Each structure stands twice: as structure tokens, then as C-alpha cells.
């Protein structure tokens, strides 16, 4: 389970990057397009474009490990969540709408920081959206600074 503040943080207007890995242990990077925590099931659903990040999503298989780092763009406050993928499905209409809302609100947050729509043009992609569900097993502070990488919690 994630605490409420962590759950709120990942579903807020935060930048999100994620990584899976292949059998040769090579990491593959993808960018998320919204995430949410389901308190009833206890897992995180990360939305990502399967065609923009084909290597990342190809290695997002049930049972495979995944790492997700979320970062608040105005102060670089960051968290990394690691876990095991429970399942990958095509995004539902609700999730597609959620991804669109995420993109719109991120663009609104980034504009006053001087980062334009053009600069973010390929960062947020909701084409061929999939939902990657994973159980959050490990949580780390990732804010740049001496505490970066410090483990906050480990699920037994």
C-alpha cells in the first residue's frame, strides 16, 4: 500500500519516467502519461504510449520488474517506485481521458516555468495508450541531493 500523500503525489501534475529491462539486463526507458493508485487493489496504473516507447512497453510483461520516477517540475521533488508488473492492458476510455487531462494540466504547469508546448512536443504522448499495473514494493527519495536514492519503505 502507498500512503495517501504518496498516492496523491503520483497522480498529481508530475513528470514521469519509467524503465523496464530485457533479458540481457539492458534497461529501456519510457515516459508516462499519467498514473494513479488504486487503494482497493493496492497497485499503481501507469499510462504510457506503446508506439512511442515500443521497447519499454515490449518489456513491460506480467511478472517483469518496473521502476517509475515521478518529479514535480517546479521544485524537482522526486520519488521512485519499484515493483513487479501485474498486468498490461489497452487503456480504457476513462484512462484515455485521464491521460488527456494529464497532458493538458502538465502543459499548463510547465508554461509558467518557461517550457513551451513545442519543447514538450514528444515528451507527452498518448498514442496507442496502455495501462501498466504494478504492485509498489519499494519507494525511494529521488530528489537531487544527498538523500537521493534513500529507501523510504520496502514492502515485505
Amino acid at each position, binding site marked *: 500500500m502507498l500512503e495517501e500523500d504518496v498516492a496523491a503525489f503520483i497522480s498529481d501534475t508530475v513528470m514521469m*519516467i*519509467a*524503465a*523496464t*529491462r530485457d533479458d540481457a*539486463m*539492458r*534497461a*529501456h*526507458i519510457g*515516459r508516462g502519461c499519467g498514473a494513479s493508485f488504486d487503494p482497493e487493489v493496492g497497485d499503481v496504473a501507469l499510462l504510457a*504510449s506503446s*508506439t*512511442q516507447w515500443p521497447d519499454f512497453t515490449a518489456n513491460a510483461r506480467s511478472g517483469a*520488474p*518496473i*521502476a*517509475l*520516477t515521478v*518529479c514535480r517540475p517546479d521544485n*524537482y521533488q*522526486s520519488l*521512485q517506485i*519499484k515493483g513487479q508488473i501485474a498486468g498490461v492492458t489497452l487503456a480504457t476510455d476513462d484512462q484515455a481521458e485521464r491521460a488527456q487531462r494529464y*497532458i493538458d494540466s502538465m*502543459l499548463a504547469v510547465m508554461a509558467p*516555468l*518557461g*517550457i513551451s*508546448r*513545442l*519543447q*514538450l*512536443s*514528444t*515528451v*507527452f*504522448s*498518448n*498514442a*496507442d495508450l496502455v495501462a501498466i499495473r504494478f504492485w509498489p514494493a519499494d519507494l*525511494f527519495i*529521488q530528489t*537531487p*541531493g*544527498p538523500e*537521493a*536514492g534513500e529507501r523510504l519503505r520496502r514492502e515485505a
Partner: protein
Amino acid sequence: MTPLETIRDSFEGIMPSVIATTDAAGMPNVSYLSHVYYVDSQHVALSNQFFSKTAANVRLHGRATVVVIDGRTSLQHVLDLVFESSSQSGPIFDRVSAQLDVMAGLQGKSHMLKLRAVDIYRVEDCRRIDPVAPLEELPPKPVANRDLLAEAAAATAELSAITDAETLLDRSLEILDERCGFRHSMILIADDEGRKLQTVASRGYPHFGFGAEIAFGDGIIGVAAERRLTLRIADMRRGQRYVSAVALATGLYSADIPLPSIAEPQCQIAVPLMAGGRLSGVIFAESEESFAFSYADEAALEIIARQIAASLAIFELTDAASDVATRGTSAAGAKEAKRAFGFQFFPRDGGIFIDNDYVIRGVPGRLLYHFVRCYADTGRCEFSNREIRRDRAFNLPDFKDNLETRLILLRRRLEERGGPIRIERPDRGQIRLVIEGVPEIRVVEE
């Protein structure tokens, strides 16, 4: 593999990169990375000093995956990296370290981000990430609207034909504007005595700011001088959220002569003026536009800066070798002297105050004191570069101290200030003191 040279704009640090690794259990780790540094066509450098998990994973597998993004076009590339070496010194370490120090200074965290080591990676592959559904149509790869190599060649051709320091200083800033688009720029000369830099020429600012100072090590200009390295900040918004670099850069006397500045600089570059292994000053340029200066602009400015430095060194050599003595000792201007004014000299740092207003310090201050003292004692107001060089009181043992440039600075500072003392240059190697009033000299020992 996409050649790294074609994605140089992705190594500008405008948008954070992403790095991912895998641990022994096969769990990935992913984090943002402030900067990926281009080293050569096969290598990049990373300064991932805080992310210990990444470092541990790299030690284990020797591999990392990085996504870089072009801050102008949003085009992304993925790099497959293989760790090669880690270094705690050397040119790449120095460059990355200086860049981090300047950025840390901008964020007010100057002691937080000290670089421990820089890691060099071989780039096994570099692939373009084709945008599937870009939010905006990506602009076509900008066609270079200037051939900066040709412009630099033309600039150095013109500058190398100039025969005096003053024309060189002003014309070089004009040429940088006309040929390379550097609209706000200044040249500062180094004063080893106080480890300071003083503005001697500027262009594109509301005021010239002659004599405005920056301490070695302060801000982008001071660090460029201290480390003798070119420094460029492509996008200041990301690092500092409008903390004024200029305010941080100014030294002890900041309130006395404001440094020329633009309201909201977004992009800055500082290049040390080096010739014969010696630093004579720094040339600085800034812009209100983010990413105004690319690595190509940097290269052009470096070429031109080296020509400026070489010419200044040659002028000093020529001046030192010339045998022009003082022409006369007539007390021109003395007859009109009426009003008395306070003239304070601080031997500790060469500081001069006129009527309690700060004027200048360092070697130019000592020179002015010498002129005014001679005038007061003997009525003499004509001097020569030659006699100054021979006077050990100025600590100018040879050509290396940029006497001519300091005299230009002194003359300009006095002129911008407007009376009662001026310096004229009636002829090459000649100095004429013009005083309107009677100086009441006071030497303040501290």
C-alpha cells in the same frame, strides 16, 4: 548509429536527460540526469554525483541507457552506453566541474554540488526516437543562417589589421554583434593584484559600466577567469528561476559601479582571453532569449576571443619596446584650476575616491594617484607609458600587465564619470592629465 555531432543541441542541458540501469536482481532504476556532456564522436560524460544506485548498477553491469532531448525541437534520442572510465581531474572533469559550479552558484547552492568525478562512457548506439504523435509539428532542422566559421575568419581578419588596443576593444564587440549576433557583450580585464576583473568595453547596455568589477571565481565571468575555461549557460530559467546572475557576480564594490546588465538574461557565455598562456581578461555575452548561443556560437566566440587576446598581447609588447619618452611637462589645464575637490587614495587596494565617490581601484587607481600626485607637486601633467613601466611603484615589471588596456579603462571611467579629472591620449604612448580644479589629496592608510 546517429552521429553524436548531429544531436549536439541535445547535450546543451536545456531539458533534463533520463538514465536507466539494472541491478543484480534485474530491477531497473530510472532517474533524471541534469546533463549529458558531449566528449567526442564516440563518447559522452556524465556527472551523476548523487545517484548512488545508478553508480552501483553501472559498476555491476558497465551499462546504462540514456534518453536525451533537444531542448529546441523536443526530438529525443536513446543512447546505449558502456562505462569506460571515471576521472577526478583532467580537461573534461574541469569543464563539467566549472559548469556545475556556475549553475550551483545561480541556485544559491554553491557548496552543495561539488563534483566528485566524471564518468566517461562509450556510446555503443544512438537512435532517434521517432515522434509518433507530436503535440506540435516539429520545426525542420534549422538551417544555419550564418556560416559562423566564415564569419569568425572575417572577424579575425579585420581585428588582426587593427593597430591599437582601444579600437580593437570597441570594434571587436561591434563585429561580434554584426557578424555573430552577440548583441549584449563586454570585455573585462584581469587585475591580478586584487584577483578582480574590470569592465573596459561594453556594447548593447543602457550604460557602459567602465570599471565595474567582478571577483575571480564569482559567477560565470569570475569562474571563466579563475579556471581559464569557456562557460556557457544555454537556459538560465532551468537553473535559477530568475536569481540574477549579475547580482551574484558582482564583487565588493558592486554598489559603486553597477555592472552593465540586461533585465532578464536567459543565456550567457564567458570566454577567457588567453594568449601565450596568460589570461588578460574575459569576453562575455548574454541574451534575453533562451538557447540563443549554441556550441557553434561558442566556438566562433572562442576563435575571435583568441584573436583579441593575441592582439592585446602584441600591443603591449610593441608599447613596451617603443622608446617614446614624455614630450613635455607643461601644466596644461592648471591655469583654469579653481574649485577644490577631495581626492582620496587608499594604498591598500589602489582605491580612488573623488569627493567621496568611488572612482576606480587596482592598477588604474595607482596610476591615477601617480598622475595627480605629480601634478600637485610639480604642475606636471604629461606622462608616458615608458616612464610608468620603469616605475616599480606600479608593480608593472614588463609588458605582461596590460598597461595600455588599463589606461584605456582609466580614461573611459573618468570620462563616463564626467570631471573634474580626465585623461587624454595626445599620441601613442603619451598620457595627458586634464584637471578642472584643485585636488586636495588625502592618502588613507588602513
